[in-house]
């Protein structure tokens, strides 16, 4: 019984971490209907960037390149090209972009302390998110969803290549200051081993989810986002700035990826395999439905728990290692019964 509980709790806690990755998918799917396969690559990129910054600071040539691009963008914000519709110079935008560009030059080659590295990575991830929206998705607007999906597979390859080009491919450890050992009082009282790291990770994930839920339910931007999710055209018609909303969502996805990357990276080491962890979010989404934050959480818990239990109780019968595919098969069977997911809405095809 104790053993069962231990496995169950371990599974649930790792399930929360799956939810965290799934959350990134849900955010983007809700706002733009894009199934962003590259969420895993974003997680990988975020973790690797933090670790890399802590180790040896920003790499010279890429940072230089980014700074030049930012300065160019700042320049065009102040001095719009001929024939542009909005001809007013946008000094605030220029100042922000220019500031980031100049600041980035100061961190080249200097190892950064943890929190600074996280902050810099956050700015970088937001930039990546916004750039993705601008360069990849906007040219593909109005394409069938499956085309967008394939484009994000392309994006996955690009980001994985970029991450390793910037920081190299070796496995690195990441210490975020939370010990990974059994919690003493649980050990003494109930003789159950639960890692304090898992618990803290779950806590962080829960806070993040609650914050996002509040943000999207209570703020003006959140309302706009839900309007966009419901109907792009109608949202545009009532004057919601679609492009800004998408940029915000991609930035938020970058942020979620960073948190997930830090937690997963600290747990399993920062390495290429992180991208596979992110793939686990797919069955989570199928269970929970693609459009529901609550679904992402419940789905994550179910997948996490059932996968660990299956590994422990069914695994030995078939030679182990079933963790690699069990989640997918659960999702697959679930699809046959309830294709719209636990929390998804049923769509009726009109003829």
């Amino acid at each position, binding site marked *: 019984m104790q053993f069962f509980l231990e496995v169950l709790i371990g599974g649930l806690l790792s399930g929360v971490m799956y939810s965290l990755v799934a959350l990134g998918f849900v955010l983007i799917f809700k706002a733009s209907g894009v199934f962003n396969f590259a969420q895993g690559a974003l997680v990988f990129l975020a973790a690797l960037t933090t670790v890399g910054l802590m180790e040896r600071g920003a790499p010279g040539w890429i940072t230089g390149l980014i700074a030049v691009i930012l300065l160019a963008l700042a320049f065009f914000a102040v001095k719009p090209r001929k024939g542009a519709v909005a001809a007013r110079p946008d000094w605030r935008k220029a100042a922000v972009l220019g500031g980031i560009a100049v600041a980035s030059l100061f961190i080249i080659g200097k190892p950064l302390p943890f929190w600074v590295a996280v902050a810099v990575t956050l700015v970088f991830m937001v930039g990546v998110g916004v750039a993705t929206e601008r360069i990849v998705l906007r040219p593909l607007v109005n*394409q069938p969803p*499956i085309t967008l999906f394939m484009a994000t597979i392309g994006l996955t390859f690009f980001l994985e290549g970029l991450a390793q080009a910037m920081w190299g491919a070796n496995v690195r450890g990441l210490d975020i200051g939370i010990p990974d050992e059994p919690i003493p009082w649980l050990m003494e009282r109930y003789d159950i081993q639960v890692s304090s790291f898992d618990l803290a990770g779950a806590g962080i994930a829960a806070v993040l989810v609650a914050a996002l839920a509040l943000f999207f339910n209570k703020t003006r931007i959140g309302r706009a986002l839900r309007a966009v999710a419901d109907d792009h055209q109608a949202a545009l018609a009532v004057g919601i700035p679609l492009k800004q909303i998408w940029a915000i969502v991609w930035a938020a996805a970058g942020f979620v990826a960073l948190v997930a990357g830090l937690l997963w990276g600290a747990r399993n080491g920062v390495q290429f395999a992180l991208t596979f962890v992110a793939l686990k979010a797919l069955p989570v989404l199928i269970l929970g439905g693609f459009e529901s934050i609550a679904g992402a959480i419940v789905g994550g818990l179910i997948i996490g728990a059932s996968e660990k239990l299956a590994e422990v109780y069914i695994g030995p019968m078939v*030679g182990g290692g079933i963790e690699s595919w069990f989640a997918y098969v659960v999702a697959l069977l679930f699809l046959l019964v309830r294709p719209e997911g636990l929390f998804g809405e049923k769509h009726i095809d009109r003829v």
Partner: protein
Amino acid sequence: MLYREAGQFRTSYAEDQQIFPIRQDRIAITAFLLVAFIAVPLVANEYWLKAILIPFLIFSLAALGLNILTGYAGQLSLGTAGFMAVGAFAAYNFELRLEWMPILLSWILGGLAAALVGILFGLPSLRIKGFYLAVATLAAQFFIVWALTKFPWFSNYSSSGVITAGKIEILGYVFDSPIEKYLLVLTIVVLMALAAKNMVRSETGRAWMAVRDMDVAAEVVGIRMMHTKLLAFAVSSFYCGVAGALYAYAYIGTVEPEGFNLDLSFRILFMIIIGGVGSILGSFLGAAFIILFPIFLNAYADPFAHALGIDLPPGMTSNLELMIFGALIIFFLAVEPHGLARLWQIAKEKLRLWPFPH
């Protein structure tokens, strides 16, 4: 002038329904086949045959299989490599366990085994579409590789599931030089490509495309959804299975299940995106591109960087490869969703008028 159809009148439906109705196309195809069957074996060296031409043909066949499913029937699959693995391991086991089994038959049976697995994992397609289905095929990919690794029977109890393909012997004749293997693979690929072309231009292919373009309307004109979708999965997996068997027997020789991983599935998907979704020719163009590009990059990236005064760190070319592939995929999807095949078609349209465009 070169590619002018004017004056070629097709006076019967039979003539209009030929596989290549335009004379220049017939000439070009004949010339191409003559080069492939006669000139290439005469001039190509062993490196070209072994490292480029044979894998090119095999991957073309796999891409063709995926294109039937994704390009024609509109069902996205991320499990292509898994189906190839089924073909390779099934063919190996038929050869191993049945002494009398002729090699060609075991390849066909390998393809049929893949087709069965394909039908099994295609069943969800009756209820789900798009990326939901993609996740289902992802399940196939992971499950197949895991099963082949975990159950040692499949690999005849070798360590970590590695199998070593036997020699290719047909009617007492052993195909062991690269030229012989090349010709054998070429023959199989040409025949299967012709069969695919025939299928997509007849009732079968029209049903696939109808399901792809609008499934409700397809049902209303009487197309059976289940039959059509599962047939697409079966035929597609058959092609992938045969490609997998050839991959083991005529190309690598020694394979392990992990060799058929998700990355390979993605690469084959990239072949059809770059080559042309829904085009037989595109499968070949895409395979050529994905095979040749890394070779090209490996050969020229370093010297080029040197010329610019930069030293590329080790492993950088493979990262560059990932980035360039990714960027190309996005580029093609955004700018030319029908890939290289469409560019070729546009070139032909221009040639119809050239040099008198008015």
